[in-house]
């Protein structure tokens, strides 16, 4: 009995460590997806990336400054995703990193945001060993496609509902994060179906684990931060938000 308790504790600690760290990067690592999923996810994301590229190209023709703008904001979003965010959760006070897709979707629109996410993921896979090359498709799907579109629509719907700028940003940040983790959980859950594992249970467990370790709090905190960011830009230089088409003139900045 005591042996199994020790074993269990060991396993538990290991899992905890693994989740703490894995959630830190939250991109699926090289080699984990089997060939058919690699293929599937690439097939799914290529149209999105293609449309994003088309958007950038078309806009670049009309406004040549668009390319440096996207590049610079892309770098800014990447840097934002390196922010050490303090979160309190089951595993105590820890820091975690935001995804940043919510913000890029709000600033750049969903399709261009997919391109930016793809580039960020490529850089992380190549130069930081977060994520991987064969899993790039899957990661672009969860973070780029799901994250961007959910964040973008959350923002737009919130704006329709006449919520204040802060709450619009909050919803964009939080919802895009939730969808990103959901996407990752689904992709991982799908790995067990062909060997008689139960897909839904696995997804629920993985998603639950993400939420219970720091990431659940992170979703909320990232939302708050994105809200503050938009608020700050609105107060300091509203012309930027107008130029990017984030707000029309009559946005209500704060109302908390």
């Amino acid at each position, binding site marked *: 009995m005591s042996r199994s308790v020790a*074993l*269990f504790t060991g*396993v538990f600690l290991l899992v905890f*460590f*693994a989740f703490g*760290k*894995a959630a830190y*990067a939250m991109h*699926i*690592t*090289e*080699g*984990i997806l089997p*060939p058919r999923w690699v293929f599937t996810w690439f097939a799914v994301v290529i149209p999105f990336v293609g449309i994003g590229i088309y958007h*950038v190209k078309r806009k*670049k023709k009309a406004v*040549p*400054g668009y*390319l*440096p*703008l*996207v*590049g*610079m*904001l*892309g*770098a*800014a979003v990447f*840097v934002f995703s*390196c922010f050490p*965010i*303090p979160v*309190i959760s089951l595993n105590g006070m820890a820091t975690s990193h935001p995804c940043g897709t919510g913000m890029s979707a709000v*600033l750049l629109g969903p399709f261009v945001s997919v*391109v930016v996410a*793809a*580039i*960020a993921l490529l*850089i992380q896979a*190549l*130069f*930081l*060993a*977060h994520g*991987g090359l*064969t899993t790039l498709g899957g990661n672009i799907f969860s973070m780029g496609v799901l994250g961007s579109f959910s964040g973008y629509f959350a923002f737009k719907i919130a704006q329709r509902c006449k919520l204040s700028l802060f709450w619009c940003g909050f919803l964009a940040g939080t919802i895009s994060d939730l969808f990103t983790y959901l996407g990752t959980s689904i992709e991982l*859950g799908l*790995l*067990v179906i062909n*060997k*008689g*594992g139960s897909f839904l249970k696995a997804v629920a*467990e993985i998603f639950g684990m993400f939420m219970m370790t720091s990431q659940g709090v992170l979703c909320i905190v990232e939302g708050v*931060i994105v809200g*503050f*960011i938009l608020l*700050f*830009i609105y107060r300091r*230089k509203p012309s*930027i938000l107008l130029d990017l088409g984030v707000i029309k003139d009559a946005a209500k900045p704060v109302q908390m």
Partner: protein
Amino acid sequence: MGFLHHTFSDVYARQNNWLTRIDVRVKLLYVISLLVMNLLAKNILISILFLSASFILLFSVKIPLKATLRSMLIPLSFAILILFVKGLHEGEKEWMSFAVAGHTVSLKEEGLRSGLHTCAKALGGISLVIVFSCTTTISRVCTGLKWFRVPNTIIELLAFVYRYIFLLLDEVSTMWIAQKSRLGHSSWKKAIKSLGTLGGMLTIRAFERSERTYEAMRARGYEGGGILTINLSPWKKREYVFVIGMVLILSLFIYAGNVQIW
């Protein structure tokens, strides 16, 4: 400093050694086909072989072991995660089980076995990527991607984003320090608020910098064309030798990967 605990591995790529001198196209071909091999292999040995070969290569060009291990930490933890996901869900035969709060949690043998295989694949794969990135600079990567017909827009954005990440990281860490030294991060609530401010300043400065950069680009004749001049050098004898070598090695691996031993 909370920022940039990440070390971008291309600092090593700027050195001059036999691996950095190999043409990027050859390296890309190798890495991609080996990664595919790694995925397709039916036995664990191939991945272990890749892992150890990568370590030897990294050692041969004097990349510090510590740096390699540090960058493998996150992939490793992800691999362990997968091990348990698979162990909990795949297969029938129990390996061991616990009771947690009234529920029985059982790890299954089959799942653990396939999980272990996936772990090995993850480590083998990531170590190949590390070898590639520690020996190839971003501008070489761009050259290679160009040759593989990756759209120009992606390559340009990649180069541009990569170029400015470091600069913005520097600026942001100065701002972060400035906030910290006026106690802007002394409690959790303040820290969140300050991070919002920081993100806002970052965005504003990125926006302004993009305007200045665009001016500088215009002054050098930019009208919306390409921003990269990629010079593809012709293949030399060396490159052909490498590619032929690769075909041989690959066929060997395809054979070895199909041997069922476990």
